[in-house]
């Protein structure tokens, strides 16, 4: 997009206006109908457009491929050995039966309670723990990827000394020697840098260590942490608190840049609460939750909002101040001037909040200055929301500011030579420290440095000693969920790469190299849990009654809260956010997460600088241009992404990329936003400039792939209204005879009103069904393998569109075109209504895919599933075939679960019921948007959903009778042109 900005945006708008009726669009290129975009769409698999070759080259290639085609099917492979156990496995389940362990994996210190499914002692899939109140069977995308993280062959495999492999014996010896020095002066000059954690055992151990070494100082650092929210709680209530939203009790939520439904430790908690309220509201006729969002850069929360307002991030404090003045009684600072537009929506939100006193919530992003958040907390307290929509309890995370110093203090002390020994546990400050601190220069002044972590990362490279930590799935530990409920983490497998748990490493620091993590954790809980209670806690996956004690009778501290000075209005603002797929960079070496299309851009394997279409037009920037941002003496170079719905003069940069040392998957891609980050203003920089550098960067996005010829893929309906049927829906005649489904007819209904686009289903499907990753280059060719994709649509003005999400698995059509198309009958219909794909029959003509109107079939072009190293193959689900190259594959409705349930039912002499089976995507969904079951059973959830007035199918005019159908999203105005 170059040339005159106004004209271009006007052209985009005109293009949309010229459409008859509503039109949803996926990207700006699509509206502009650029020739390059048309080419991508035209090709069945984007990358298969033939190169500029002569006829003979093509014939030659065809002959060669025919010759090669049959080869993989030949031969029987080497003979297999069987290794039965030595000991009598009477207590163990049979090796081919899964066993589930209730445990948890951790994320930013918080527990994500799971049931780990293991086969023959190796974990292959994590399900949310259905008995746990903070999961109810759901997880987020990060949790699903933990299995691949466990088998990552790039994880650290042995202790290293100065980069050379060493052993645990030497490491223990070095620790003992170092401790002797520390004990001499009570640990003077010894520093411990940790990530904030919720583990009671870790806390107990560190506190014991400080008894031994009273001079030891503790520092805590989390790159995307909530320390500003903790500071806000202290400002507002004069004491440290854990604050949590109870969205299930909220009727009105005003979120000012608080990404409630977006990725983060509380995502599942919020999604459960929000969806319970939203579904209850719409289905039962009660009052639905209303969500109003003001934000500078689009988030999942903004996408699901009833009203979304675009404001610069730097304006949020002013909005909060005006809201506080309008709602609060005392202590609010003088309200700054607002524009007429801002005054309009702020005053209407204020009156809605006031009208719903006690069941409203004013949420302010955890990255906003503490004063701003404190103001909002005080407003909530004054409206009587404490204990209802805003729950305050004793802190869950430790250490807080009372117990630990900050990273800044540590750097200052290191630079001044006051630190003699530094132990870094889990954190990776050499990468995540803000660039202006110059952490690594200060670090190198410390004479003795030790790092313990999952990977030999950047910090490991700057330390004398590095110790490999065990993964949460291989160690004993404990952790608490956001509400404080504790889970005992039990190992599902012995440490694969010789790591030790963090508790064993702390015990080593405390002079007990022989302590084992199980005993350490057991000791923490000895007082509270006797042996029976301990076993019960392990079995059910949490310790009952450990939720953090609520704090009643909180009085907002009367001290007036002043607002921080607003940044200058000149220049651009740069907001820094964690990456939606790889967060702060900790998941950078996980191929599943790298390849997970980011919720709104559908970008993979990269981070970009989000700019608004207006700014792009103004500065002559287009998606893929490398731009330079300058802010004072700091500079950041990265590819631009033109993001609809972005604030005009806000640029968003994502953390987590630009890693220098992590592993083969994650290093050397993207730009490093940490280097650009300022320690005093970590989330927002004002007064920046952006300019094109003239370079281009290839970006791999799945957004233009797999487009359906559906003009209304996502349908909207006004509250309480029914969808008007489209005329073509009545015409369901078919030349083929009808199937009858005498027993079970599997069906899926996806509620678009509840789907928040979180991608958990995509990764659950990937983990369950052995879906391989393909890499950035192959994605660019349109060859991603995800069986389930989540389409993102925009509606309306490119500067301020609405966002919709639509998960698209296989439709399992009753009149499936793919079945007709397959020349070798590899696509077949089953008596319960599945379109089964028979891999061993498929010869790879790809006819089925070209016949598929929904574009849900995936072709395995190369041996994508072949693991880089043998250990990686251990994550494969043994119940599902690992597909070879040259084979078409697609969503099977988790046929292995159906087959398993069918056999189990037969063994138990009972008929198979629809409720016996749940697909991986439906099980993981934190908003229960995906429902799966037996359509023939009138009482089932899917059968009831199919009778909903919001029910519709995609491309119904084709008469293929899809089995996967949708419930329309509810929007105030309904569909454009609707009566």
């Amino acid at each position, binding site marked *: 997009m170059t040339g005159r900005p106004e004209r271009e945006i006007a052209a985009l708008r005109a293009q949309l206006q010229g459409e008859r009726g509503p039109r949803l669009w996926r990207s700006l290129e699509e509206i502009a109908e650029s020739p390059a975009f048309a080419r991508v769409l035209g090709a069945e698999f984007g990358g298969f457009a033939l190169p500029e070759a002569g006829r003979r080259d093509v014939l030659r290639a065809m002959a060669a491929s025919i010759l090669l085609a049959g080869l993989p099917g030949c031969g029987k492979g080497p003979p297999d*050995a*069987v290794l039965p156990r030595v*000991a009598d496995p009477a207590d163990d389940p049979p090796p*081919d039966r899964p066993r589930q362990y209730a445990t948890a994996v951790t994320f930013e210190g918080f527990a994500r309670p799971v049931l780990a499914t293991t086969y023959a002692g190796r974990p292959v899939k994590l399900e949310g723990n259905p008995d746990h109140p903070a999961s109810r069977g759901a997880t987020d995308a990060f949790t699903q990827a933990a299995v691949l993280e466990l088998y990552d062959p790039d994880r650290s495999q042995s202790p290293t000394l100065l980069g050379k492999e060493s052993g645990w014996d030497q490491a223990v010896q070095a620790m003992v020697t170092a401790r002797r020095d520390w004990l001499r002066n009570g640990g003077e000059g010894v520093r411990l840098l940790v990530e904030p954690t919720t583990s009671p055992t870790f806390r107990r151990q560190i506190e014991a260590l400080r008894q031994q070494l009273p001079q030891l100082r503790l520092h805590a650092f989390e790159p995307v942490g909530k320390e500003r929210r903790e500071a806000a709680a202290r400002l507002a209530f004069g004491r440290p608190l854990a604050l949590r939203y109870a969205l299930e009790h909220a009727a009105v939520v005003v979120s000012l840049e608080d990404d409630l439904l977006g990725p983060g430790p509380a995502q599942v908690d919020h999604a459960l609460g929000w969806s319970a309220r939203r579904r209850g509201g719409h289905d039962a006729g009660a009052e639905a939750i209303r969500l109003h969002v003001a934000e500078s850069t689009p988030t999942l929360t903004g996408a699901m909002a009833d009203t979304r307002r675009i404001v610069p991030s730097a304006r949020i404090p002013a909005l909060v101040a005006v809201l506080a003045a309008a709602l609060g009684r005392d202590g609010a600072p003088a309200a700054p001037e607002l524009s007429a537009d801002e005054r309009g929506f702020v005053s209407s939100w204020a009156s809605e909040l006031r009208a719903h006193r006690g069941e409203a919530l004013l949420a302010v992003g955890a990255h906003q200055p503490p004063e701003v958040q404190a103001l909002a907390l005080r407003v909530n307290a004054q409206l009587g929301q404490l204990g209802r929509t805003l729950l305050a309890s004793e802190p869950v995370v430790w250490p807080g500011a009372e117990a630990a110093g900050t990273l800044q203090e540590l750097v200052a002390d290191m630079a001044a030579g006051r630190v003699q020994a530094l132990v870094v546990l889990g954190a990776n400050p050499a990468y995540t420290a803000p660039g202006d601190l110059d952490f690594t220069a200060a670090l190198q002044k410390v004479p003795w440095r030790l790092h313990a972590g999952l990977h030999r990362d950047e910090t490991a490279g700057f330390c004398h000693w590095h110790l490999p930590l065990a993964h949460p799935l291989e160690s004993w530990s404990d952790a608490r969920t956001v509400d404080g409920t504790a889970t005992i983490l039990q190992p599902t497998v012995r440490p694969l790469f010789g790591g030790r748990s963090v508790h064993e490493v702390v015990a080593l620091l405390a002079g007990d190299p022989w302590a084992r993590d199980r005993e350490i954790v057991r000791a923490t809980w000895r007082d509270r849990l006797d042996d029976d209670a301990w076993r019960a806690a392990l079995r059910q996956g949490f310790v009952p009654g450990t939720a953090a004690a609520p704090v009643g009778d909180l009085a907002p501290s009367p001290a007036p809260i002043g607002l921080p000075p607003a940044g200058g209005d000149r220049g651009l603002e740069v907001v820094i956010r964690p990456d939606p797929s790889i967060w702060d960079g900790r998941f950078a070496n996980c191929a599943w997460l790298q390849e997970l299309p980011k919720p709104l851009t559908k970008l993979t394997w990269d981070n970009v600088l989000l700019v608004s279409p207006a700014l792009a037009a103004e500065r002559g920037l287009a998606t893929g241009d490398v731009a330079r941002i300058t802010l004072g003496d700091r500079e950041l170079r990265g590819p631009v992404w033109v993001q609809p719905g972005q604030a005009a003069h806000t640029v968003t940069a994502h953390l987590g990329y630009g890693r220098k040392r992590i592993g083969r998957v994650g290093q050397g891609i993207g730009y490093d936003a940490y280097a650009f980050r300022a320690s005093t203003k970590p989330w927002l920089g004002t007064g920046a400039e952006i300019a094109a550098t003239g370079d281009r960067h290839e970006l791999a996005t799945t957004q233009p792939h797999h487009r359906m010829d559906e003009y209304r893929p996502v349908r909207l309906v006004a509250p309480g209204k029914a969808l008007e049927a489209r005329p073509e829906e009545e015409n369901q005649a078919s030349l083929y005879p009808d199937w009858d489904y005498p027993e079970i007819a599997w069906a899926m209904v996806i509620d678009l009103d509840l789907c928040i686009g979180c991608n958990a289903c995509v990764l659950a499907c990937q983990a369950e069904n052995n879906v391989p990753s393909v890499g950035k280059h192959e994605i660019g060719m349109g060859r991603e393998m995800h069986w389930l994709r989540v389409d993102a649509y925009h509606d309306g003005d490119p500067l301020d569109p609405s966002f919709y999400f639509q998960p698209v698995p296989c439709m399992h059509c009753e009149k499936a075109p793919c079945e007709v198309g397959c020349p070798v009958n590899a696509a077949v219909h089953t008596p319960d209504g599945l379109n*089964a794909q*028979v891999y061993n029959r498929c010869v790879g003509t790809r006819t089925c895919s070209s016949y598929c109107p929904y574009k849900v079939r995936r072709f395995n072009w190369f041996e994508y599933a072949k693991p880089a190293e043998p250990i990686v193959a251990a994550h494969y689900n043994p*119940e599902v075939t690992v597909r070879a190259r040259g084979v078409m594959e697609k969503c099977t409705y988790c046929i292995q679960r159906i087959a398993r349930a069918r056999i189990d039912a037969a063994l138990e002499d009972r008929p198979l019921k629809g409720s016996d089976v749940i697909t991986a995507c439906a099980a993981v969904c934190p908003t229960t948007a995906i429902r799966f079951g037996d359509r023939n059973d009138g009482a089932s959830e899917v059968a009831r959903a199919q009778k909903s007035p919001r029910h519709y199918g995609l491309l119904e005019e084709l008469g293929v009778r899809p089995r996967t159908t949708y419930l329309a999203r509810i929007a105030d105005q309904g569909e454009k042109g609707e009566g």
Partner: protein
Amino acid sequence: MAQIFHPGADTRLRLAMVALGGGLVLLFVAGDRFFGSDWFTGRGDHPAQPVPFSHQHHVAGLGIDCRYCHDQVERTATAGYPPTYTCMSCHSQIWTGAPVLAPVRASLAHDEPIRWQKVYDLPDFVYFDHAIHLKGGVGCSTCHGRVDRMPITAQAAPLTMGWCLSCHRDPAPHLRDPADLFAMDWQPGPDQRQKGEARMARLGIEPARLQNCYTCHR
């Protein structure tokens, strides 16, 4: 101008066409024979085992039930190879010093599994389930043959998909009473078809469903 076609050209063409047709038929017949041959399917193969375990001796000679060692077979997909403990439950008392049992004793002593070689090795895209076959009434010897006459265990069936389907299309002749499942010498009686069909009706076994691709492939 010379004749383009030789007088015998027609004959040659006809011969060539017959040869081509015949050759194709021959190719298919030969292919069928080849792919169905024991050499290709592996029927009769008896891979060398670390211990020359004799089913003949243990089953026919001593009368040990199949489930004494393959104790998971009624519950799970795989029949299960016995752990070394099961072997030693007898061999700690008898034949305690036999040289052929040295690998078994070594396994127990060093806590290392015995590396048995698979005799029945299905492709990885086939999901066979022992438990459901027993439940339906398919006895051991139907697929594994007269194991009680095998001094060294051999593959008794071709394990081709056609062989699997021959039973899935018409299971009645093979379905036994639960009491006979582990009998090695079971023979179908004259009323087998009625008995088999009665069993199918009772358990709701429908060949139409058994022939579905996803019965075995997922």
